[in-house]
């Protein structure tokens, strides 16, 4: 049985006026690293709070480790680790006091589970007497992860652990997750950074409370319905505007140093030549057009439309 199961879960706020989560179903297998990928307001946090028994769903069923998320909340709270999106440790307690507090609440000790957190904790140990409120963003994130792990949870819920964190710390964080996964911990993690989707085994793309697609990132990419091309020229902002004027373009979005474009009919061979001629006539220089593999962000944009 899957460690996390959601069946047609719905959550509304403001007496039903705001639909935060709409008929969402998915499951996370034992030992899986599953990503919930979507922007702010997609419903990610509501899902996390229902699964960690902090919110009641309006409809549908859910279970964690085989326990019902409504009836069996006490059992679930023993088994899960939760790192909320907003830093929620005690700012006035030191690093070590926070960790020992959470260990005690779960009737265990730091020593008993030290092997699980060691690799992460040694990075913040030099600051163990510093108050949590005085830590840097990266260190807060590591302490919160240690506190979520200290009772050896079966399932770990991480709500946007890398938001607002720089590239280097983000990469380190995902390395830590890989190691926790190798220890058999089931992980449900959310992120608004589409590039992090590739680091998950399976992902759900979520927008406005609804799941748009669930699969492995590779499969989602392979299901992209069009041929995609990367194009660049000397003046990228004008290039974008001009391509959008071209008859036969289906989509055109900026992606870093290129724009990604697709054609209405990609079987028509001359269409690429026509586009290049069209752009040359608009005085674009150094035009480069080449096929490109879609990213998860391309897929997300496609699914949104």
């Amino acid at each position, binding site marked *: 049985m899957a460690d996390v199961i959601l069946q047609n879960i719905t959550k509304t706020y403001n007496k039903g006026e705001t639909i935060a989560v709409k008929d969402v179903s998915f499951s996370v297998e034992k030992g899986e690293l599953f990503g919930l990928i979507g*922007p702010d307001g*997609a419903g990610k946090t509501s899902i996390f709070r229902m699964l960690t028994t902090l919110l009641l769903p309006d409809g549908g069923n859910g279970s964690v480790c085989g326990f019902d998320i409504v009836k069996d909340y006490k059992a679930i709270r023993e088994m899960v680790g939760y790192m909320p999106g907003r830093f929620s440790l005690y700012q006035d307690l030191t690093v070590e006091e926070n960790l020992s507090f959470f260990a005690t609440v779960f009737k265990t000790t730091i020593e008993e589970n030290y092997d699980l957190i060691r690799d992460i904790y040694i990075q913040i140990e030099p600051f163990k007497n510093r108050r949590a409120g005085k*830590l840097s*963003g990266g260190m807060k994130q590591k302490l919160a992860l240690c506190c979520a792990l200290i009772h050896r949870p079966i399932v770990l819920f991480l709500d946007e652990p890398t938001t607002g964190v720089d*590239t280097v*710390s983000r990469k380190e964080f995902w390395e830590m997750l890989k190691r926790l996964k190798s220890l058999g911990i089931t992980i449900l993690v959310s992120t608004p950074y589409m590039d992090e989707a590739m680091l998950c085994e399976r992902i759900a793309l979520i927008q406005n409370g609804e799941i748009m697609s669930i699969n492995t990132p590779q499969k989602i990419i392979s299901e992209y319905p069009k041929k995609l091309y990367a194009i660049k020229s000397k003046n990228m902002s004008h290039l974008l505007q001009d391509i959008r004027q071209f008859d036969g373009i289906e989509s055109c979005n900026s992606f870093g140093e290129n724009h990604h474009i697709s054609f209405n009919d990609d079987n028509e061979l001359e269409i690429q030549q026509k586009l290049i001629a069209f752009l040359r006539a608009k005085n674009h220089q150094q035009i480069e057009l080449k096929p490109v593999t879609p990213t998860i*962000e391309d897929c997300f*944009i496609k699914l*949104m439309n």
Partner: protein
Amino acid sequence: MDGKVVIATDKLTKRFGDFTAVNEITFNVFEGEIFGFLGANGAGKTTAMRMLCGLSIPTSGKATIAGFDVYKQTEKIKRNIGYMSQKFSLYEDLTVLENIRFYGGIYGMTNSKIKSKSDELIAKLGLEKEAKKLVKSLPLGWKQKLAFSVAIFHEPKIVFLDEPTGGVDPVTRRQFWDLIYAAADQGITVFVTTHYMDEAEYCNRISMMVDGSIAALDTPSVLKKQFAAQTMDEVFYELARGAKRGE
């Protein structure tokens, strides 16, 4: 890029006690330029930006913003810049129109100017039906676009954007950059921070702060060549992983 310098700093420094948050940064930003201000967490970006906005007096060094001195003319600086961040942008309990009027008023615009410009802005954003609704009822993407428009409503010389697109969906993120380009085309200088490295590519030039200093500054293509990198993400990683200090 040549042209009129609108931000000029010379060995600009800020110390808190014995901690040097910003260490002798020297750079120029030109009129109409989109300037990306990047750095690891804790590199000193926020402190530097606060000095450039006239909110924090430097410890040493020089800087002028739109021609005004960061020590003596902070009020003039504030009148000539716009500011928007992801964390705070608009008043949720005011309507769209009230927010626009409020900002216009704060920046000393006349009532008639506010009236004509706000009609124009609402039409441009296609918010006619929402003009009298509370901002909190708008989707996040619309809020961000409105916030940006409000930040440049008083036609500032420079707009400072502090992670304006954090958490925004990929379509809105790109529409947001369309607005940035449009503002730059009008001659507004855009000074922007971001954690999205694809957005670094959209800037004319990038500076990268590491441990309080500017470790690199150039166009994205030159920086990629310099670091033999395929993407700006790799450039950032190369520079920031050597950082000594956290946030």
